[in-house]
């Protein structure tokens, strides 16, 4: 037992306090009272003294291994544990090197140069090309989800030297840095992953990011400690991040107002107006236009009977006309969203002011006319959705809208795992969900959903659209790309395999004294290394 421990134990056993304790506590109390008297919220002083930040997650991460789990909550945490090969600068919408710099030697050869001197957490040594190579190989060997979404053009990778990796592609792929190195660019420590395996690694992740996992109590909280060897100069600024799992938005809000947490995402939209209008002193409001969309999509034969009403294009168009998009924004998101009828948000190449075809307030007469033309005189439509409460509410509102054209919508809420399986395996009639776009390249908001080989294309086969998508991916001239993507969007608007509702702003509430927090447009990416107490 050390001397310090011994002294503390003796003092505690005696039940007494030292003169130093009295002086320290008096000084701290005096400072806190002084601050309170000066109108500063007491809890900010306490947090600033601790130099730690508490962030409320609105769900429990299933794991912290980016090669196994793809949901929001785990990614919010791993943003701060793992670095990526490249990272999107949300402000400029450009891709910036993080762990590697890249060079395109020929259309099929990319050379990655690893940043030297980056250290793995907890003494696992230095990051080298071996780790990068290991991750490229792991995606192929374990067929992780990256294989289908970001690594599909990769033929193989090999080590040129300790810090240089060569990646050979099967086909030219211009979004390689944006999609493969950023979205699919998680890097895990080879030695740690080999030692632990997938599941253990997901509970004890070893990254190179600004924070390392200290402890995790399931269903309650996770603690990240500052990585003292982090490569970003002077960062992170806070010593500790405490993630508390608080699913209920009203509990998140009361936790913020009582000072138990410092930053919260997703306040209940009914509460947002009073914060937006600055009604709560000491609380700041951030609203970021999201790279996302809310949508409804359908399955097509062979995943659904050929005579099912939604296979008829007029029924799908009728549904799109029956949707009052503005009401969804007003009632579900308290105005924190923008209307759209297509998947290309503002800022993306090929964006056009929305709505393009389907009116923001809907057109019920046109919808009824199309239903009559289709001969669809009322039917049951089962719509799946995941367990996000705002989507359940949106489903109820959409159900009421569709009942006006004789569609009896049956809502089937599912936990996120069951939902994802049903969605990817195309085991549903219709689906109402939201999704975050993984990169600022327009390819990522269209290809997976509308190309005949896209993993979430549900049987809608349009050869022209698939060809345009392939062409757009290989084309470098922005004007030519724009034309191609306009063609694609027009075809989607005409045939309605997906029906788009809105792009939702991401809203955060935080204490005024928290500086350097910028919630990005992607809900799963929440960096905290620039955050500090002001």
């Amino acid at each position, binding site marked *: 037992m050390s001397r310090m421990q011994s002294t503390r134990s003796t003092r505690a056993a005696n039940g007494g306090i030292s003169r130093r304790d009295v002086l320290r506590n008096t000084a701290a109390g005096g400072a806190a009272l002084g601050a309170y008297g000066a109108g500063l919220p007491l809890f900010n002083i306490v947090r600033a003294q601790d130099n730690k930040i508490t962030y409320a997650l609105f769900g429990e991460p299933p794991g912290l291994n980016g090669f196994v789990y793809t949901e929001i909550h785990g990614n919010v945490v791993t943003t701060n544990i793992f670095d990526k090969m490249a990272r999107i600068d949300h402000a400029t919408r450009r891709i910036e090197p993080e762990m590697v710099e890249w060079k395109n030697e020929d259309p099929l050869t990319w050379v990655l140069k690893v940043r030297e001197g980056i250290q793995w957490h907890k003494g696992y040594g230095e990051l080298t090309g071996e780790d990068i190579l290991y991750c490229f190989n792991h995606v192929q060997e374990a067929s992780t989800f990256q294989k289908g979404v970001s690594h599909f053009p990769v033929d193989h990778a090999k080590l040129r030297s300790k810090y240089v990796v060569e990646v050979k592609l099967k086909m030219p792929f211009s979004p390689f840095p944006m999609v493969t190195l950023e979205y699919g660019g998680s890097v895990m420590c080879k030695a740690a992953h080999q030692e632990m395996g997938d599941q253990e690694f997901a509970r004890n992740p070893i990254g190179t990011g600004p924070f390392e996992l200290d402890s995790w109590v399931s269903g309650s909280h996770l603690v990240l400690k500052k990585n003292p060897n982090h490569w970003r100069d002077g960062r992170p600024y806070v010593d500790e991040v405490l993630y508390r799992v608080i699913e209920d938005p*009203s509990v998140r809000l009361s936790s913020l107002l009582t000072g138990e947490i410092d930053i919260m995402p997703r306040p*209940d939209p*009914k509460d947002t107006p009073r914060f937006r209008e600055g009604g709560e002193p000491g609380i700041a409001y951030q609203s970021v236009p999201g790279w996302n969309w809310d949508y409804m999509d359908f399955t097509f034969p062979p995943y659904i009977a050929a005579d099912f009403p939604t296979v008829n294009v007029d029924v799908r168009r009728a549904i799109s006309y029956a949707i009052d998009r503005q*009401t969804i924004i007003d*009632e579900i998101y308290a105005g924190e969203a923008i209307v759209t009828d297509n998947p290309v948000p503002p800022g993306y190449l090929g964006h056009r002011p929305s709505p393009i075809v389907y009116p923001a307030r809907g057109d019920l007469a046109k919808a009824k006319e199309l239903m009559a033309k289709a001969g669809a005189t009322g039917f049951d439509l089962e719509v799946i959705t995941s*367990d996000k409460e705002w989507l*359940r509410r949106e*489903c*109820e*509102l959409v*159900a*009421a809208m569709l*009942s006006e054209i004789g569609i009896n*919508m*049956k*809502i*089937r*809420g*599912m*936990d996120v795992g069951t939902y994802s399986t049903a969605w990817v395996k195309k085991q549903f009639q219709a689906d109402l969900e939201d999704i975050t776009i993984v990169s600022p390249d327009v390819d990522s908001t269209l290809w997976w959903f509308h190309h005949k080989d896209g993993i979430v294309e549900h049987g809608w086969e349009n050869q022209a659209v698939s060809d345009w998508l392939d062409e757009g991916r290989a084309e470098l001239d922005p004007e030519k790309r724009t034309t191609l993507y306009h063609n694609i969007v027009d075809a989607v608007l005409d045939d309605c395999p997906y029906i788009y509702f809105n792009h939702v702003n991401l809203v955060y509430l935080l204490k005024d004294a928290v500086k350097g927090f910028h919630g990005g447009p992607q809900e799963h990416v929440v960096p905290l290394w620039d955050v500090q107490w002001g």
Partner: protein
Amino acid sequence: MTESSRTHGESPLRLAAQRFLRHRLAVIGGVLVTILILSAVFAPWLTDVEPAKTNLRSKLSPPSWEFPFGTDHFGRDVFTRMLHGARVSLLVGLGVVLIAAGIGTPVGVVSGYFGGRLDNLVMRLMDAFLTFPPLLLAVAIMGTLGPETENVILAVGLVYIPVFARLARGNTLSLREYTYVSASVALGASSWRIITRDILPNIIGVILVLIAVTFSRAVIAEASLSFLGLGVQPPTASWGRDLNEARRYLEDAWWLVTFPTVMIALAVLNMNFIGDGLRDALDPRAQD
């Protein structure tokens, strides 16, 4: 007329009915539950508004002549939703007691009457079920089956089967030692005849009491599962789901949380009063 001559002159059923009617709370419970059942059955005729019909211009309106129970955040009529919610709750209650009593009672009687290894096997299985807290087990079953009204009935019904089986077995074990049962055995009556003629009629009283109690528990279980998002799916009206949604407006719209709570309390309390009345009425020791 003396007490003795009165009891000798009337059927046990009539006597039980008289005792039930003397139980004031049970009578009140019976009347209110009857009103609730009739309201649920005739809901489409009592209100011409669709329970899922939104009316955003009237959202969050307090109770008034137009909207007796007010409206919710989508402007839906809360009175209509309460009536239609009663349909779901009562349907679930009925379905649950049919499954639980319909399976649990015969299983318990057969197990108790034959005893031996069969009894051991069946009762250990029932014990295994009973080790789980009922709601937790229902949540687990719902997680597997998916959120549908039929699945709520099945899940909660399965949870209560062991409760009926245990009660039926205990009473059968006691009854099979009675001399009239021994006499039936001595006269060569078949097991089927003894179970259906000698045992079942004599345990029906306690089973009826348990049915009343289970019905009220099923109503709570449905409300709880729906509150958790595992029960009846929107836009179908459900007291539990509406109560969950009402939490958001606790400070702004008192009527949203009040009416589902009152409806659940009314249904549960009055079914329990009926259960109490039945217990007193059917208990042979309470004759005097």
